[in-house]
């Protein structure tokens, strides 16, 4: 039983004795004083707040959080929402590991990451709250709105546990408000477990001065597939929550919105990814379900047929990759979407596509690894396996999406590169982008995004399928159906005619040309822009989903007078030219990556044994620069505040 206390699970007996009665000063049971406060409230203006809503899974905190984020976004606020997902589908009720919900960062301006610890938390029971507390997700002294029904729970153990947590949090300076969520909700619904979330949405609308009409619209949208009764009930709960807060709570904020000029859409990274597949003109997505990639395929399955296309759920990832390769070979460039363990299984197929120069897009929505690792959690641990995971020398393009918007455009770009260069293009995203939501400008459809219709014209007689251009390494692509193009593609070493090559010179020629092709592609890349000054004391280099947090950290450090800048890479393989010169203008270069790297905190971790994070290793090898690195593997996006701390440790 490690349920009762904040930090020391085993001391429950001692502590139990301490709490007998609830504190008199507690703001609970304030329902009687209706109307007394409303008039007195003055909204405090904030630049931003991080709000968390956590419950047992199935109690709807996720939906509440998403709706809250959407309403704020509709009002024109910058938002970033992060899902809080328990590992199990049905974790036991009231368990620390079972916290399910949403974290929403709401701001006046556009935000690019989930921010730091929470400023306000709504918890449906004290155990999930404890989970978040122990995970150090609460800002010290933050506001907590806690369901109060557990205080009087018939099960004495529960009541005592609740009282403990409550008292300790109050003692630690948290501003805990007990909210009679359930007793208020039973007035409207027989099963308050399934209605509380909209009551809470009402509370939050009141606290953050959100437009109630927009919240009503949101409810109508969320429940659009349900009947009118359900919608009305939820509207009622929303109103009840709002009114209750107006009358009983002393908390009132306003986060003024700076309305964007262009049309904005809001979605998570996987939805953006799926729409990117559709917008790229690809016709086939072959996949095998794996968290956190699957939801992209779920959504794609829903919409893809409307443009005549297919999501094929194969029997495994090996088949999914081979299937995509078959479709691409037949002229219909395909994508296969997966996550770490699936990427491992696809590696042999990826090598075949490289060897035989079949265009292919592989998306890896990274999760915690190795092995089954942390399926629902974010990590950036697959960079090296994306670059070098298969056997032999297999040059391919590896790129990473760094924002939700970028998930959309990356796939479009990947398809284009794949078909222009007859190459494998890996697109890396991760669990944090997959599930986070953020508004971004509504894309303007461009026909150039689409794949051209397949070429079925006759190939000139005598043309060879691997007629590598000596300058670029590029070879033509003969698609079945093209007269005169018949040849037998093979994963064996082959000559220009695609004949199996036993000749050592020919083997070397093929490998050289595939490498040349990647170099040719490299010449098309532009150097990324430095964020901050062009020179200084320290340059942070990052890739993928960490962009927002890194740049926010840089802003904070610069505001503090530190000479820190950052550089964010979209292409990890090959890398653009010009970076070495950038590195030279800084005293120190370091990467920040959401992956493991040894820090020199043990006797046996020294410069001889130290294992660097993936990007740091790549940069050190390529540029002969002493690149340091910092990161963590806590299954979530790195917070800007932590980056600030890591950087400060490294500054003179």
């Amino acid at each position, binding site marked *: 039983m490690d349920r009762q206390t904040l930090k020391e699970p085993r001391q429950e007996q001692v502590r139990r004795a301490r709490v007998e009665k609830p504190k008199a000063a507690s703001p609970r049971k304030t329902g009687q004083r209706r109307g007394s406060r409303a008039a007195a409230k003055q909204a405090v203006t904030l630049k931003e707040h991080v709000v968390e809503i956590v419950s047992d899974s199935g109690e709807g905190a996720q939906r509440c959080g998403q709706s809250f984020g*959407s309403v704020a*976004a*509709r009002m*024109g606020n910058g938002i970033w929402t992060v899902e809080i997902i328990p590992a199990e589908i049905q974790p036991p009720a009231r368990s620390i590991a079972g916290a399910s919900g949403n974290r929403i960062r709401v701001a006046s301006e556009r935000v690019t990451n989930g921010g730091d610890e929470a400023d306000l938390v709504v918890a449906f029971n004290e155990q999930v709250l404890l989970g978040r507390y122990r995970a150090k997700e609460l800002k010290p002294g933050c506001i907590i709105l806690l369901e109060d029904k557990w205080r009087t729970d018939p099960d004495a153990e529960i009541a005592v546990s609740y009282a403990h947590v409550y008292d300790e949090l109050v003692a630690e300076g948290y501003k805990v408000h007990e909210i009679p969520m359930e007793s208020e909700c039973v007035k409207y619904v027989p099963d308050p477990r399934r209605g509380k979330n909209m009551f809470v949405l009402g509370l939050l609308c009141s606290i953050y001065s959100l437009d109630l009409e*927009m919240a009503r*619209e949101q409810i109508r949208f969320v429940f659009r597939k349900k009947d009118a009764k359900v919608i009305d009930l939820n509207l009622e709960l929303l109103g009840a929550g709002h009114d209750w807060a107006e009358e009983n709570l002393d908390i009132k904020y306003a986060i003024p919105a700076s309305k964007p000029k262009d*049309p*904005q*859409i*809001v979605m998570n990274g996987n939805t953006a990814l799926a*729409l990117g597949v*559709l*917008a790229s*003109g690809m*016709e*086939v997505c072959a996949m095998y379900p794996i968290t956190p990639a699957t939801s992209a395929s779920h959504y794609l399955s829903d*919409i893809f047929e*409307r*443009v*005549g296309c*297919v999501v*094929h759920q*194969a*029997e495994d990832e*090996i*088949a*999914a990759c*081979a*299937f*995509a*390769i*078959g*479709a691409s*070979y*037949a*002229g219909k460039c*395909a994508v296969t979407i997966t996550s770490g363990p699936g990427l491992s299984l696809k590696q*042999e*197929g990826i090598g075949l596509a490289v060897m035989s120069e079949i265009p292919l897009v592989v998306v890896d929505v990274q999760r915690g690894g190795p092995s089954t690792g942390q399926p629902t959690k974010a990590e950036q641990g697959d960079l090296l396996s994306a670059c070098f995971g298969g056997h032999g020398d297999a040059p391919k393009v590896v790129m990473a999406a760094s924002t939700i918007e970028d998930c959309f455009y990356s796939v479009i770009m990947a398809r284009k590169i794949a078909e222009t260069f007859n190459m494998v293009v890996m697109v890396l995203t991760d669990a944090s982008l997959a599930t986070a939501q953020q*508004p971004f400008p*509504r*894309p303007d*459809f461009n*026909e150039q995004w689409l794949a051209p219709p397949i070429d079925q014209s006759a190939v000139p007689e005598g043309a060879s399928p691997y007629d590598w251009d000596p300058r670029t390494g590029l070879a033509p692509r*003969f698609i*079945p*159906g*093209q*007269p*005169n*193009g*018949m*040849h*037998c*593609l*093979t*994963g*064996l070493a082959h000559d220009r005619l695609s*004949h*199996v090559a036993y000749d050592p010179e020919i083997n070397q020629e093929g490998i050289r040309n595939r490498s040349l092709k990647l170099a040719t592609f490299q010449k098309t890349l532009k150097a990324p822009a430095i964020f901050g000054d062009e020179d200084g004391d320290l340059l942070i280099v990052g890739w993928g989903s960490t962009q927002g947090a890194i740049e926010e950290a840089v802003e904070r450090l610069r505001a503090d007078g530190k000479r820190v800048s950052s550089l964010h890479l979209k292409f990890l393989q090959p890398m653009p030219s010009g970076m070495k010169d950038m590195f030279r203008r800084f005293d120190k270069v370091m990467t920040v990556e959401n992956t493991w790297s040894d820090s020199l905190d043990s006797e046996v971790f020294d410069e001889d044994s130290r294992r660097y994070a993936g990007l740091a290793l790549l940069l050190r090898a390529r540029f002969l620069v002493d690149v340091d690195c910092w990161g963590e593997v806590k299954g979530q996006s790195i917070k800007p505040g932590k980056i600030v701390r890591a950087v400060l440790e490294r500054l003179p």
Partner: protein
Amino acid sequence: MGIPVSECLLKLMAEGYTLDDYRGDIPPRWCTGCGDNGILAAVQRLCRDEQLPPERTVFVSGIGCSSRFPHYMNAYGFHGLHGRALPVAEGIKLRRPDLHVFVSTGDGDCCSIGAAHWIHAIRYNMDMTVLMHDNQIYGLTKKQASPTSPRGVKSNTTPRGTYLDPLNPLSVTLGVANVSFVAQAVDWIPELLYDIISEAYHHKGFSFVRILQRCPEFMPHQFDPWVQNPDKMLLLTHEKGVQLSAGLSKVYRKQEAHDPGDLHRAREIASLSEQIPVGILYRDSDVPCYEDVRMVDRLHTPDVIKGVLEEEFDKFTIWPSE
């Protein structure tokens, strides 16, 4: 049954593909006496007789001696990964129903490393002709036991003989949902080999032909009892299956009139142990093909794509809210 010569000549003059048109530009490199040579000859004949345009015909294979097959054809070929021929072929067929797809796979390729794909390929029932070259041994890697090696076969990995009974590819195939065509042929009766592959080609769906294929290099006497004694063979004939020429009928006297619609009897025939059945065990032309099931009547044009994208963007638009 072959097409009479006169008819062939007529065809030839009209459309023009000759046997030579299907010969790849490198000669087969199989061992002398290897059964794969006979399978290649039968398939080239079929292509000629059906006048398949080489540019619209794709031969897919995995890895193994038998998987060299596509190199020896003049057509599009895909010599891919060990065990993965079937999913590649499925990917090709899904969006290109205009292509004739053939698959050559070995017993190791199909029944061992690719077994999962095999089971599911049967269930997808995509329109392709699958030739499983079963020499009951791993040829290319030089004599290791395969899942179809009879119990007791001495190989480099089983020097004291294999330990287990073999897997029966016919029974397995007949046991999977959506099975639509199962046949067995042997390389040493070329006439029937041709007829059976031709039936397989004409069946719309996943046509699985297990071909018992001699490997003189590593299993020199494996099929001797059957090659030498035609009475150990059981020829399946039927008006809905293959019919025997007078010559064949005389040599192979053990025959059974087997209706390919009779799944129950097909399963019994599949599990015969002494006799080798040859012919069409099972055929059901009504099983839907996955490529048809997944075909949606929607155009994939820029306008349609734009339309759907805009509709979806509308759903996610938060600003302006209306």
